[in-house]
């Protein structure tokens, strides 16, 4: 009995690691395998690549690249905006640091969906923006903002900005402020300091935030559905339609695989870009 107990305790590490690993295998790996095999196997045709042939059309590629472009644009914009803000919170905010970080997360207690729907109030023809712009006199007739790509972009930017800010801020927190001071003391201007000192050291946080925003914007379902007026298609809405409305699982699965492939390739390109930037900064 004692021997069994001893044996168990010495293997305890495996016991503790099991649930998390099992979770990933059962609930991440298995569904992905099912999707990939569904794309290859369809009810009428057995094992064939016919779904892929049906999916490789210009229409589908347009949809994927539209989503990709929007996601890239959104991620880049978030990165550009997030850097100064994260820097400010980490280094210049003093007493207000914790409050500002808390304020970042507070909007998410209010539901994400309600956020998006609130933008109706702001972007509509007689909504907040138009009212203000008309009052001030910048425009003479209401701008057409709702149900356009612009609306989708604006809402996506606003919703995903904190996802870029938080990892970046965490990274800045670990950053040694004296390095910046030293850089300035040694005579480097802002531009040099940024590229040579700040950027390489905050790269891990920037990478995480960038890919997070990229992935989430690419496959977003709610924002394009509510904001684009149904006139153009995005990856998230098309996937949902294929499964929910058309019930053509094989084609839907093939479409998922295709978009995933393109997304991962793009992520690979971005990763290489990050690596090159880091290397360039070092020279």
């Amino acid at each position: 009995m004692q021997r069994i107990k001893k044996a168990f305790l010495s293997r305890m590490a495996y016991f503790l690691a099991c649930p998390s690993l099992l979770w990933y295998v059962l609930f991440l790996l298995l569904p992905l395998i099912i999707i990939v095999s569904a794309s290859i196997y369809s009810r009428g045709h057995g094992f064939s690549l016919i779904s892929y042939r049906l999916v490789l059309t210009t229409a589908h590629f347009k949809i994927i690249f539209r989503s990709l472009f929007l996601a890239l644009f959104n991620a880049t914009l978030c990165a550009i905006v997030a850097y100064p803000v994260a820097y400010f919170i980490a280094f210049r905010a003093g007493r207000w640091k914790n409050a500002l970080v808390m304020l970042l997360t507070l909007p998410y207690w209010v539901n994400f969906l309600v956020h998006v729907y609130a933008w109706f109030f702001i972007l509509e023809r007689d909504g907040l923006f138009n009212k203000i712009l008309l009052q001030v006199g910048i425009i003479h007739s209401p701008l057409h903002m709702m149900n356009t790509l612009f609306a989708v972009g604006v809402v996506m930017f606003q919703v995903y900005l904190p996802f870029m800010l938080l990892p970046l801020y965490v990274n800045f927190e670990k950053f040694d402020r004296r390095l910046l001071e030293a850089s300035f003391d040694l005579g480097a201007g802002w531009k040099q300091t940024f590229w040579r000192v700040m950027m390489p050291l905050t790269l891990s946080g920037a990478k995480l935030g960038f890919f997070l925003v990229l992935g989430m914007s690419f496959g977003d379902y709610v924002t394009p559905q509510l904001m684009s007026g149904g006139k153009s298609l995005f990856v998230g809405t098309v996937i949902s339609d294929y499964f929910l409305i058309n019930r053509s699982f094989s084609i839907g699965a093939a479409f998922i695989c295709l978009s995933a492939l393109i997304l991962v390739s793009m992520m690979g390109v971005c990763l290489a870009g990050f690596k090159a930037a880091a290397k360039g900064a070092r020279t």
Partner: protein
Amino acid sequence: MKFLSRLSLPLFVLFVYALLYLPIIVLVVFSFNKAPGGYHWTGFTLAWFAELFQTTEIWVALQHSLIVAFSAMALSLVFGIMIVCSMKDYLRRIAEFFYLPILIPEIVLAVGFLYLFSFLKVPFGLPTLIVAHTLLGLSFAVPLLHARFNEMDPNVIEASLDLGASAWRTFLWVTLPFLRPAIFSVGLLVWITSFDDFLVSFFCAGSASQTLPLYIYARVHVGITPVINALSTVTLVVSCLLVTIYSAIRVKLEEII
């Protein structure tokens, strides 16, 4: 001139925060608006709040959301701590891969779950939701806890064991307090992700397990009534209260300890 450039950064940050809060402010303001669904201010009223408190469906949905969020948070934290403490060295290189579930577009995960559960004839309901959200939670928990765990000086554990404390006591009194900030932020992140989650819930919730986001989605489809605005205002007030209470408690705790 220098003053202006010194001011430009804070102003920029203010502008960004204003943009982040714009929809919320609009929501809160219009929750007091008299007209249903209009975009014009027609008068102040508290009627929508009254209706909110009378709608039992919202409270049922909220109850389900809370159950799922707390369960997912607890499970991901417990499993996360378990694997991080036991597999520290093995995780060093592969911890980043645990981020995969949140890097994949959520719709793919949702569809995958739908397929999996349907194929295995698993009944859709609260357990399936909890399971799905725990996966999302683990994808935050494992990398972040591991990062924090790595920062700990290994000598501290050795010292504690040398001083005669058992492994369990060492874990409780040395490791766990050190991990506390990460535990707190991971818990918060997972809770919010689960509470807010729409897509996975849309596909994986069953009958008798409607969560708050699903209820709101259904309402948005019907006709935009300010009851949703009232709900958001209440949520905001509650979360502000919670944050304030937590900050106050933390100050007190730090004074005591």
